[in-house]
Each structure stands twice: as structure tokens, then as C-alpha cells.
């Protein structure tokens, strides 16, 4: 079709957005396509690169990718290239026509992009900064003969194709949770029998964990397959052994084909199973044993080189029983790149752009190990209060729209700041409600003691209250919502509760906590749904007792390093 159209001489031209309906000559090149006569976007003689943006914001693909694109544009310009930006999102900095040498305000479909590539004849196209949007069309671009700069298409496929990626891991002797790929219900059940429950199930090729779920038994799996087949058409379903209670680690790194630069190792505060985009995380990874940390770094280096990454790579790991497992590797800019850059002072997207355009890491004078004079905590911000009726439990499906960062000289103080910035200021006194699943009761007793020491009154569901009382922690029992009035939901609604720690497990319990979470949302009190989150919160409340507010600016934290690069 495309060939036919071009054969007939039907090609678009580009018109400038010039504020004055062509009455005066425009100097800022900002273009849109149309099928008309005069082409106002006349190609310059300069060496150019095209950077593809991330399109409309959505959950799983937001401002972080715009940040990376803008850095890629600024760096390409610094290196002497004509940087051409393509995006269709009017809210972003990348579509500010002052940022790039040329801006094409166009849909990010293969056809629209091929048209403007033809008009510009660039040295190549950079697809790794705009999230899934440019990656979706990268293959088509390559097939049409457009050079992809940075990590080649085959390396992307190598990381995304389960079979091929499994081979890479085997070769490098890196562990991963057992998995399988099912194209039918029977196949899925067979795989489940082989690797056992709980399972993390999802359709192939999605960003932001859409339609991803943890299933605990065959019934759950059956129900999921019925829903998921709809969500994923004829694409297969991926099944992974879910490592319950594992600690999750995220790494952002840059590879130039010879060397790997590790931007940061981030430790998630929530356990595995909460989507990495929804989990709070901390730099440095303060409670990972040094030996495992070294292993994570070594794996990152081996994987980036083996996959053939040129540019950014993000790898997610899980640590369970002192063993490191690779969960996934994404050879592209990730949503944590800006957070890492601000935490360490090394602008990773800029470093990656230099690498993509041919520079070597060894020539860049990067700090060998980013210094961490401070702790930075990134916390996700969730949209539940604006979507009435939403279930607020976190899971493998990403739900957050934004993020905040807290900086402090200790982890608990940074966590407290991040919570405050996310609009969930932790209480320093009052009444705490606890409803803890059986597996977490030992830990709950310890937290209960600390809360009592801080002067909190504790109310709890009968089972939790009993466990606390048995261990000598005074706790007043209160009825669950399903046990009838007067119940905890009413107490929350009338303001008698200042904070909630509620850790559901399994599908039934999760549904049970729905009313509690809705009530906390309505009253705006913090509702913590994981034990790891509760542990961090209690430490943070302890830290909040210290007087005075310490503020830090990035210039004093990172010196001039960030400004020069």
C-alpha cells in the first residue's frame, strides 16, 4: 500500500507552525504533515539523528520517558548533530520547539514516522528512550532500511523472547525463576503442574504490567486464562514461578559494547509481586549483603555485554534465600533513569546518548562508583482518590501515575520525606489499626512493640489483637467490616484511626480489605499493605521524632559534576 502510494507520487509535505499564518518568515522549525503542495521542511545539509518520543502519557509510560528523550536531544545537539524530535504529546518538554533543532508533531505510527524519515534522511533513529511506543515500530523501521542507532533490534528481541533469553541466562549461568509459555489452557495447566504455584501470569509484550496477575491455584489460573485471552488476542501467556517474599532489585546501566557502567542498584521496599513502578525504592541498596550486591553487578555486566546492548539497559532481580534471580532485562531507557540520575548526579540518559552516537564509556570520566552521601527514596503516587471505586491494593499490574523523591542522611528519614511528598504524611501519634495475615504475625508483634514505645494506641482485628496480646503488646480488638457494626471502617471514617497496616494474602483476603482501603482513601490516612512497607514506615515514624527539617539541594549534593556533563 505504502509502496503503491509512493509510486503514484502521493507523499506528504510538512508545514511550519509559525504563529502568524505565514505572514512573517518562521525561524523555529516546528512541523506537521499534510497532503498538500509546498514542503516547508526543507532538509538541511547537516548530520542528523531522529529521536522518537513516547506519545500520550499513560500508566506505565509517563514523564520519565520524556525526560530521557529530552536528554537525548540535548546531548545529540551538544555533540554537533541536528537533533530531530518526533512526538504527539502536547504536555511535554520534548514537544517544546526550543528543545530540539527540529520538531515534528506527528503520530508515532510506522507510516507517519517513515514519511518524515524519508523527508529528513537522518544518520539513524534512536528508539530506546520513548518507552514501548518507539520499540513497537522499531522492527518495521529496520525492515524499511532505516538505521536504528544503539542497541540493535536483534538484541531487543533476544531480551524479549523467552526462549532466546533463557539460552543467554543458561550460557551465563544466571538463575531465573522457572517459567513456561502457554498458547492454550491445557498447556498452561501442564506448565503450572511442572513449576508449581504461586505463579505470575501475563500476556507477552506489554509495558506497565497490563493484565498481569499472581495466581495461587488452578481455579485462579482458569479464571485468568479466560480474561487474559481477551486482553492479549492470540498472543501467548507467560507463566513464571512467583518468588513469594523475595526482595526485588532494579539496576539501570549503560553499555557501549565493551564496558558496562552501573548507574545504580535500587532496592525495592515492597516485596516482589508489587509492580516495580508502584514500589517504593531506595538508593543505595542499604540492606543487601555486599556479596549479593557484587553478584547483581556482575550479572548486569555479563548480561548487557552478552545481549549486545548499546545504550541503556534495566534489569530486575529478585533475591530469595540469598540467591539472585533475574526476573527480566529491558534493553532500553527505564522509568527509573531520572530518579537514578538525580540520586547519583550522573545523567544516565546523556551518557547513553553519547554511547549510542559512538563514544566510549572509557573516554567519559565517569565516577567509578557513584558516591552516595545520602539516601534517596522514590515513592509512587497512586491515582485512587481520583478514580472512585478503585481497588487500592498493589499487585503486579502497575497503577501509579507519578512519583516523588525524598532525600535525607538516613534511610528512615528519607522514607518519611518521600511519604510526606506523596501526600501520605505518616502519623507521629494517635491510633494505629493492624490487620496482619498469619504468615506475618511474628514480625507484626515486633512492629507493635515499637509503635507502643512511640506512644501509639493499637487496635487490631481479633486474630492480630490476640497475637499481639499474647506477646505482651496491648491491643484493642475491633470488628472487621464483615463482622457488622461497630466496625473498623466506621472508626476510620469518623477519624478515630490515624494509620492502617493491613497485609492481605490471597484473593479472598484482598477483597475483604477493599472497604478498609476505600475508607482510608476517603479520610486521607496512610494505608500500608505490605510488611516491608510497614517496617519502613515504623522506622520513619521513629525518625520523624527528631526536631528540625533538613533540606538538601542537588547542587550541594552532587557538586558540579552534573552541570558539566
Amino acid at each position, binding site marked *: 500500500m505504502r509502496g503503491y502510494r509512493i509510486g503514484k507520487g502521493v507523499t506528504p509535505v510538512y508545514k511550519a507552525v509559525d504563529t502568524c499564518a505565514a505572514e512573517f518568515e518562521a525561524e523555529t522549525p516546528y512541523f506537521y504533515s499534510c497532503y498538500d503542495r509546498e514542503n516547508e521542511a526543507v532538509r538541511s545539509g547537516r548530520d542528523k539523528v531522529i529521536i522518537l518520543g513516547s506519545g500520550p502519557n499513560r500508566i506505565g509510560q509517563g514523564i520519565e520517558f520524556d525526560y530521557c528523550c529530552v536528554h537525548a536531544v540535548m546531548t545529540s545537539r551538544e555533540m554537533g548533530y541536528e537533533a530531530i524530535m518526533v512526538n504527539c504529546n502536547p504536555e511535554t518538554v520534548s514537544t517544546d520547539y526550543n528543545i530540539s533543532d527540529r520538531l515534528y508533531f506527528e503520530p508515532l505510527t510506522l507510516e507517519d514516522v517513515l514519511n518524515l524519515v524519508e523527508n529528513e534522511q537522518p544518520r539513524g533513529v534512536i528508539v530506546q528512550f520513548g518507552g514501548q511506543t518507539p520499540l513497537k515500530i522499531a522492527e518495521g523501521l529496520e525492515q524499511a532500511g532505516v538505521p536504528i542507532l544503539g542497541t540493535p533490534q536483534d538484541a531487543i528481541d533476544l531480551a524479549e523472547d523467552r526462549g532466546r533469553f533463557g539460552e543467554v541466562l543458561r550460557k551465563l549461568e544466571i538463575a531465573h525463576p522457572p517459567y513456561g509459555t502457554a498458547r492454550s489452557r491445557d498447556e498452561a495447566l501442564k506448565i503450572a503442574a511442572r513449576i508449581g504455584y504461586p505463579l505470575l501470569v501475563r500476556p507477552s509484550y506489554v509495558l506497565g504490567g497490563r493484565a498481569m496477575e499472581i495466581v495461587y491455584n488452578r481455579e485462579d489460573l482458569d479464571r485468568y486464562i479466560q480474561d487474559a485471552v481477551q*486482553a492479549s488476542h492470540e498472543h501467548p501467556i507467560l507463566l513464571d514461578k512467583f518468588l513469594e517474599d523475595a526482595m526485588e532489585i532494579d539496576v539501570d546501566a549503560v553499555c557501549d559494547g565493551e564496558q558496562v557502567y552501573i548507574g545504580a542498584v535500587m532496592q525495592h521496599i515492597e516485596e516482589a509481586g508489587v509492580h516495580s513502578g508502584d514500589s517504593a525504592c531506595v538508593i543505595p541498596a542499604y540492606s543487601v549483603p555486599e556479596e549479593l550486591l557484587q553478584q547483581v553487578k556482575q550479572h548486569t555486566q555479563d548480561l548487557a555485554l552478552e545481549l549486545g546492548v548499546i545504550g541503556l539497559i534495566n534489569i530486575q532481580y529478585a533475591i530469595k534465600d540469598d540467591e539472585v534471580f533475574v526476573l527480566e532485562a529491558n534493553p532500553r531507557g527505564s522509568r527509573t533513569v531520572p530518579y537514578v540520575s538525580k540520586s547519583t548526579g550522573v*545523567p544516565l540518559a546523556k551518557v547513553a546518548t553519547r554511547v549510542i552516537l559512538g563514544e566510549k564509556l572509557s573516554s567519559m570520566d565517569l565516577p567509578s562508583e557513584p558516591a552516595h552521601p545520602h539516601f534517596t527514596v522514590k515513592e509512587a503516587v497512586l491515582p485512587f482518590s481520583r478514580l472512585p471505586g478503585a481497588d487500592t491494593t498493589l499487585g503486579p499490574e502497575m497503577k501509579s501515575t507519578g512519583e516523588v*523523591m525524598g532525600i535525607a542522611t538516613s534511610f528512615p528519614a528519607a522514607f518519611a520525606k518521600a511519604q510526606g511528598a506523596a501526600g501520605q504524611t505518616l502519623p507521629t501519634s494517635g491510633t494505629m489499626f493492624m490487620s496482619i495475615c498469619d504468615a506475618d504475625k511474628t514480625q507484626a508483634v515486633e512492629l507493635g512493640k515499637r509503635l507502643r514505645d512511640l506512644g501509639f494506641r493499637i487496635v487490631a482485628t481479633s486474630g492480630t489483637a490476640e497475637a499481639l496480646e499474647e506477646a505482651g503488646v496491648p491491643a484493642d480488638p475491633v470488628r472487621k467490616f464483615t463482622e457488622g457494626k461497630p466496625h473498623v471502617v466506621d472508626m476510620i471514617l469518623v477519624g478515630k484511626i490515624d494509620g492502617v497496616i493491613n497485609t492481605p494474602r490471597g484473593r479472598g483476603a484482598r477483597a475483604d480489605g477493599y472497604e478498609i482501603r476505600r475508607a482510608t482513601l476517603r479520610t486521607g490516612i496512610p494505608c500500608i499493605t505490605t510488611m516491608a512497607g510497614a517496617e519502613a514506615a515504623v522506622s520513619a515514624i521513629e525518625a520523624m521524632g527528631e526536631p528540625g527539617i533538613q533540606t538538601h539541594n542537588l547542587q550541594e549534593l552532587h557538586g558540579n559534576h552534573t552541570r558539566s556533563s
Partner: protein
Amino acid sequence: MPRRTDIEKIMLIGSGPIVIGQACEFDYSGTQACQVLLEEGFEVVLVNSNPATIMTDPAFATRTYVEPLDVPTVSAIIERERPDALLPTLGGQTALNLATELKEAGVLDRYEVQLIGADYDAIQRAEERELFRDAIDRIGLRVPRSDLAKSVKEACQKLEKLTLPIIIRPSFTLGGHGGGVAHDLDSFCSIVEDGVSASPIGQVLLEESVMGWQEFELEVMRDRADNVVIVCSIENIDPMGVHTGDSITVAPAQTLTDVQYQRLRDASLDIIREIGVETGGSNIQFAVNPDTEEIVVIEMNPRVSRSSALASKATGFPIAKIAARLAVGYTLDEIPNDITRKTPACFEPTIDYVVVKTPRWAFEKFPRVDAVLTTHMKSVGENMAVGRTFKEAFMKSMRSRELDVEMDDAAGTEEMLAAISTPSAERYDLIFELLRRGTDVADIEAATSINPWFLGEFEQIIAREQRLRGRQLADYD
């Protein structure tokens, strides 16, 4: 009037995390403002808790604080940095609210920090409903009939003077958060209750419904010499009742007569002067009754907004950048237009193309959430497309959505006609399907109150589609 020399250090507040109703448009506006102020030789102290923004890159400010946006923290930063001025109009509602709180807590007076861009009184007049209504009355315009309530009981008493349907809007919230439209007494009570708790001051506005009226927005800028320009007009294809952030919008307005447009223009000039936004940009929203042509003023944002980001991209006129220059003393005639570099910013932009913006929702992520669109914004992003005609821009915008959910088009015609009477994310896909099935434009208009001009354009798109359907390329040789 040249740049002010009595201030050297300016604090800028960002909009914090991306939330529904406040997205990266404020990274765009804040980044522009930071760049301009640095260029002008000011020291810039930036506070924003969101690390994913470009503006918090250390190169965009003299001092960058990634810290919580609350009174205690920002007070500590003010105490440490001692800025001369605070510019609160580029960080959305978050920055405007925080500036108000800092003023009310006495922090700005204690450290002698001046509010620039919009002063405290102007912010109050634009944001406090009663003050706003009085201001609009004074210039001979009107807002929808309304009253305030602080409880369900009080609201029910006020109901005697108002008739359902009624729009409930909580005071001082983002994206209409916590509000809604009530058609009966039950929903009225429950929405009022939610609204009272969502409002930081526990107050809701009960408002005459102008649902079905056409909605227009004008982007206006004023300088301290009282020059005013209209940057752009924007028309919401979805009539009143859908939040503008959830509406498909078009720039410039397509269905106004010149007389109607001039009336909105004149009204906008009067409003920005009466509210007293001394320098900078404002977004003013109007509802126009399609039958009587009566105009009511819906609201005014005395700051840059999502719509101003759209207007900037739609026209090439950088509102945030110019607002920052105006805030430090320049006048519109002194600021060059950076596209032409020949004309000053007091030349109103002219556009010879059409721009369409389409929202992007995420309902597939939240299965229990009610996917009906109301006055309470639910979209998480948007795209914009430019074309020579409305049809071209609209179709480009549709394909920019990158939807990964397919519509179920097996529904019956009657069912679909009923479905489009309630605004939803699928509304336009349903309208197109109905047109494919030969449904009369008048029936669609009756169900949706969408202006028939737009429906006529859609009908032409479908007519062309149907002429092509089933043909082979060879048929054209």
C-alpha cells in the same frame, strides 16, 4: 517597562508528582520559566518533589530542592535561601495552593518574599467562588446560578432555590476532584458528602447545570501596562458536563460566529482585568447556550494550565516563557516572538491549520472504576494532532492514541445510541460505528448534544471510508 532590578533571587514551585489532573504540562511550563529566569540573570531556587521532571535537572536552576511541597519544608527552604520573590503561577494548582498557604501562615511576610505573577488577592478572586461570582457580576456577565454549602444538610436547604440536575464542585481541588453531577436527591447527597471531604476547606459549590451547552476556552495574557492578548480559542467537542481534560478539544474554535467569538473575546479582556491578574496567562472557560446564544462564565485559572500548554503547542506562542518574562517586569511589546523573531509578543497568533487534542484514559487498569466521564477528570494523558482541515487533524489524533484495547463493536444500534448519551472513553468510536450503520446525524445530536457541524464532519469521514471499502488497489490504476 524593562526587567525589574529590585529582585535578584526568585523561588519557583513545581507541581509535584504526576497525578490525574496535573501532569507533565507543568514540567513544560516550569522548565521554560526556569530557563527564562536564568537567562535574565536571576538566581532561581526551585522546589519540586518530582525527580522525573526535566526542570529538576540541576542545570535548570541555581538551587534545586527535590523536597516535599508542604508548608514546613518550603518554609525551611525560604529561611535558608531568602528569595526576594515567589512565582507560584507555573506549578499548577499545587503551587498556587502552597503559595496561598505560605502567605496565610505568615511565612512570606516574615521573610519579605513578594508574590509575583499573581498576587494573593487576585488568586482569591479567581479561586473563591463567591468572590469570583461577585467579580463577574460587576462586569455585567454571569456565572451559573449557584450557592455554597459546608454540609449535606445545608446543601439540601439550598436546593429549594436551585433545580436538579446540579453540578457539585469542591473548593480548591485539582481536576474537579471530588465533584460530580447529581440528577436526583440520593446522588446529590452522596456527591455533596464526598465533595465536602475532598475540599481542603470542607466546602462545595452547588451549581445550575449547563449540561449540553457548548464549551469554549480562551487563553489570555496580560502585562503590567494593561496590554492584553488572546493567544488562542479552544472548543470542546463534548458539550458541558465533561471535564475539559476529558474532552476532545479543537483549536481554534470551529463553530462560533464572528459575533459570538468577539463577545467571548471582550468578556475575556474584562475578566482578566477585573480579577486583577497583573501579569501572566490565564485560562477562561465559557459555556454558550446553543439555542439562545446566552453566555455564562464557568471558571478562570489565574495561572498556566493544561490548556495553556496545549495553546502554546497549537500556536507556537510560548505562554509559560512569556508569563515568566512578564512576571519580572517586561511588557508584551518588549518580548520578541521566538518563532518569527520579528514580531513582538503583543501580536496575537494567527493559525492557518486545525489542532485536535484527544485524552487518553486508563480504565482497563481499574476494573471496578466507573468509566463514565463527568466534571471530574479521569484521563491520564493526551495527544495533539495538527492538520490542514478538522477532518485531517481529528483522524491523526485518533491514530495517535495508541490504544491497546479493542472496542467491542458487536453491540446493537439501539444499545449504542443509548450508550453515547453518556460520555465515555469509547464515545467517538461508537459514534463512528453508528454512522457506518447509517444512523441519522440528528439522532446522534439528540443523544449527545454534540454540535452538528462536528457530526457532519464525522459523517463525511465515514462516507469516504465507505467509498473505499472493499476496493482493491488495482481498481485505481
